[in-house]
């Protein structure tokens, strides 16, 4: 992460110096930082609301039921995560929310899942197999209906805004399938975690 972030800054500044965009860089860096804070404030509300609801669902046993329905999938994808663990429940919630396109519900559950996964391991600063696999699946983003895109399309006068749903489902399935193949191959042939 340090190299990734550092690299982004270094490359950005050096390239800007070469192309004479340094002024724009300063403005943009500050504008983006400000944008991050307002995004975070917006997110705080959504996050508090959603995690609050999740707590109700959790105590009412709904999360457990959803997670056990997802159980076989979780066991297949992430064999290193213990069955019926809190981590597994959050992972299931994250995946279901992503699938339904509830991005604002997916992120809190995903972050909670990462925290639980971290508690399962001893190493402090290295990602576990489960973390890597979980994120790869998450980033491959299996989504049922791309609501935002449909809305933009209708706004820009598409004849049939939802016409992209079919190809989108196939494309998103292919990317998730690629992710599954990747993590399964890695689990089969990868080095054993130290």
């Amino acid at each position, binding site marked *: *992460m340090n190299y*990734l*972030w550092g690299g982004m*800054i270094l490359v*950005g*500044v050096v*390239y*800007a110096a070469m192309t004479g*965009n340094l002024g*724009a860089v300063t403005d*943009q*860096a500050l504008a*983006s930082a400000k944008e*991050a*804070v307002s995004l*975070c404030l917006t997110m*705080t509300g959504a*996050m508090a*609301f959603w995690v*609050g*609801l*999740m*707590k*109700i*669902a959790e*105590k*009412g046993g*709904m999360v457990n039921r959803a997670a056990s329905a997802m159980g076989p999938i979780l066991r297949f994808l992430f064999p290193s995560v213990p069955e019926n663990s809190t981590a597994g429940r959050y992972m299931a919630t994250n995946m279901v929310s992503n699938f*339904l*396109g*509830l991005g604002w519900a997916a*992120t809190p559950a995903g*972050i*909670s899942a*990462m925290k639980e*996964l*971290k508690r399962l391991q001893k190493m*402090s600063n*290295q*990602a576990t197999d489960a973390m890597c696999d979980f*994120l790869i699946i*998450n*980033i491959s*983003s299996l*989504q049922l209906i*791309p*609501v935002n*895109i449909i809305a*933009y399309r209708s706004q820009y006068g598409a004849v*049939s805004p*939802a016409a992209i749903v079919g*190809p*989108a489902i*196939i*494309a998103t399935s*292919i990317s998730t*399938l*690629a992710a599954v193949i*990747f993590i399964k191959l*890695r689990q089969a042939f990868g080095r054993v975690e130290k």
Partner: protein
Amino acid sequence: MNLILYLSEAVIPILVLLIVGNGLMHRQHVYEDFLEGAKSGIRTAVEIMPTLIGLMAAVGILRASGFLDFISGWLGKVMAATGFPTELIPVAVVKMFSSSAATGLLLDIYKTHGADSMLGRAASVMLSSTETIFYTMSVYFMSVKVKKTRYTLPGALFATTAGIVASVFLVWKT
């Protein structure tokens, strides 16, 4: 189409109703439970704020420096040989960093080429089947203070590339 939009609008309210209704049926202290969860939600949101600031500033720098355009141009030359539409390269590259910036580019494509053009449709499918790799990785890993991300990036890039190729292929073949 209207049904789909209606359903996606209704999903969240129905979910809220189910959760609270189920809680009441189980005689839970729903409001207290809610407050307990909300508290930890706020804590998480505040904890990832520095991560977000650092990340978005870095993405902003990268974008303002023109480096992303440079990469797109370079990739475009390489990909032109394979018949991949060059107009879509910036969308694919930017989407890896920032969803809102990619949406901006998508709307540009709608304006110039039309929402129903091949490019418009391919870009739509592409954005719906890919995720902001660097943003997601940073937020998730930073929230647990993980520094070594091991094979996450190659795996994520592999899945995303598959999605991008599939999007273009699907739209061009149909």
